[in-house]
């Protein structure tokens, strides 16, 4: 087992496009870290550079203590699970898993033992002599996992392994992977575009956008203390609401006003706004933190005209607009609401995130 360090990792394609821009991530030995971000953000490219399937333009990748930049994949002591499983279609499940070991001239007895062990963990014993074409998607993905396990690598790399599975299987296999991680105490780097997956599986999450690392932290850190507007909007489903409010300073009393909304800042926020000298700020608040009914004291009050109401069982998901800006909220089902109603929703100060509208950095919020 080994940790992985990405040191200013950069990938530039011919033509100048920067796919990965100075990524700095320190992955601890045995950690399960997720690289998450929208399609095309560079997370898969970064993973492939760690694997050795893409050349590195500049920066270093260190696995354990070794700099692996110029090593071919086979010498990096890694295993990879692909989105499309990438099983060898003409080989049986057993041979698929044994292939890597066969290439290294491992004695047959050892190969058999390793394959049997992996098959046992993944419940594949019945399928050992079948070909991938005879297996279901979930079974194939387990074979792909088995192929990786059998090699006992220092690092497991996974490229959106669950994307091709249906919802139910996805949940099941997610648990499988988590179990394997616990059992093997292996370092795992997991790439996904699905932030729910990332939040549930990772010890830590690295959020990447347009090749640039936005934030690395535990799920809790990312949820409660996003460093910028992108992370705030990316993490959490449904995503955070953002409205732009004007800063008005009337004789020392700072309020934020927008069309249909008003924010009374608490002392800390007031001081921050005064000192910043900004006219406009972006305020973020999560749908699940909104309540029906106005707040008398400090906090955000937003008047919303409802146009869609979705029944979720214990909660209600409502969509509306306030002063031209869309707002989504999850509120208690006991509230009596209908389409067209104009309601006031509120959020407590500690649930508010304020962002600099230019730099998009977070100025304040639960932290």
């Amino acid at each position: 087992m080994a940790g992985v360090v990405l040191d200013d990792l950069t990938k530039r394609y011919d033509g100048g496009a920067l796919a990965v821009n100075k990524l700095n991530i320190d992955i601890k030995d045995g950690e399960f870290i997720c690289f998450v971000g929208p399609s095309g953000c560079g997370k898969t490219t970064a993973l492939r550079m760690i694997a050795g399937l893409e050349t590195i333009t500049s920066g270093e990748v260190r696995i354990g203590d070794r700099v692996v930049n110029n090593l071919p994949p086979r010498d990096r002591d890694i295993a990879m699970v692909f989105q499309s499983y990438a099983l060898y279609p003409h080989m049986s499940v057993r041979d698929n898993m044994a292939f890597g070991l066969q290439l290294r001239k491992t004695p047959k007895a050892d190969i058999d033992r390793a394959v049997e062990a992996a098959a046992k963990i993944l419940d594949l014993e019945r399928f050992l002599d079948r070909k991938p074409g005879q297996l279901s998607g979930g079974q194939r993905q387990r074979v792909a996992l088995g192929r990786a396990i059998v090699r006992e690598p220092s690092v497991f790399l996974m490229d959106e392994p669950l994307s091709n599975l249906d919802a139910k299987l996805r949940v099941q296999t997610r648990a499988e992977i988590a179990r394997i991680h616990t059992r093997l105490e292996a370092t795992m780097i997991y790439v996904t575009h699905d932030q729910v997956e990332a939040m549930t599986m990772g010890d830590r999450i690295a959020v990447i956008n347009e090749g640039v690392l936005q934030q690395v932290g535990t799920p809790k850190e990312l949820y409660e203390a996003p460093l910028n507007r992108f992370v705030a909007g990316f993490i959490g489903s449904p995503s955070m609401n953002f409205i732009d409010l004007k800063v008005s300073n009337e004789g020392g009393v700072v309020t934020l006003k927008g069309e249909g909304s008003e924010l009374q800042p608490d002392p800390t926020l007031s001081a921050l706004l005064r000192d910043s000298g900004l006219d406009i700020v972006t305020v973020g608040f999560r749908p699940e933190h909104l309540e029906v009914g106005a707040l008398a004291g400090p906090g955000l009050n937003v008047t919303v005209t409802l146009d869609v109401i979705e029944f979720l069982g214990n909660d209600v998901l409502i969509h509306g607009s306030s002063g031209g800006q869309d707002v989504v909220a999850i509120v208690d089902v006991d509230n009596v609401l209908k389409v067209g109603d104009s309601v006031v929703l509120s959020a407590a100060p500690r649930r508010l995130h304020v962002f600099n509208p230019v730099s998009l950095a977070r100025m304040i919020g639960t932290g």
Partner: protein
Amino acid sequence: MSVVQAASLPVAKPAPTRRTRFRPSRLVINVVLAAIAIFWLVPAIGIAIISLRPESAFEQSGWWTVFTAPAQLTFSNYKTLFSAGFQAGGVLDSLTTSLAITIPVTILVTVISSITAYSLVFGRWRGRTVVFLLIVAMLVLPLQMALIPVASLYNFIGDTTGVKIFGTVIGVIIFHVAFGLPFGIFLMRNFYTGIPHDLLEAGRIDGAGEWTLFRKVVMPLGLPAAASLAIFQFIWVWNDLLVALVFLANNTHQTLTLFLYGQTRFLSSNYWIISTGAMISIVVPLIVFFAFQRYFVRGVLAGAVK
């Protein structure tokens, strides 16, 4: 100029790492392939040069010596062949005969294949599978199986009705169309299965008849496949020898392949003339090939079953 780019899907980048290990073997591959490419060009270059050298030069030295003595190149052989003008049996007459056969066959095969395939894919009658399987079976049927009875049939028609078919261009056309249809139907049918039925359903609901549906919906969408078929069929018929030999051998007008074959048989040592005929016969397919590479290659790929 993307020749087979359409056929070969975008080639992924080769494994990028191990730069230092790759270089020597990449050089070797380039050298080997360059040698192969040169080897491949030699026969065509040879025959071209032979056609451009006069008889005296041919007997004295090999065509490869022309690189040291380029002055000997001449168009005299071509003049000789063209001097016969459009007289029957000459090269120009054979060229027109080949055209007179190839163009009708190409049109007929493309059109009939299209409508037959339409019927097989969008028709609503039973037994479509059986008919299609029969077509597939016919794909590999050697045309030798039909030569004798068809020749007899032609003669029979000629004897009873006085309409001469055997030994005429018509007879050749009829035969070529018949043996071009299985492949044509197969190719068009495969393509048509990719057209969503919904498009026609919508049309039918609006009241369109089958012919309108074919003309306005299926045919325009199927143009790429039809083009591939046409190109492929054109070159196939242009280059045919056997059918022409059987049905046209004694005709005053010969196809180019018959003309060439005749030269080889009866003037077997006059290679400076024979090669010239070969060059002329290659010109048309070569033009078609370079103009429609993409379609020809697609037709060939689909014809992997032929």
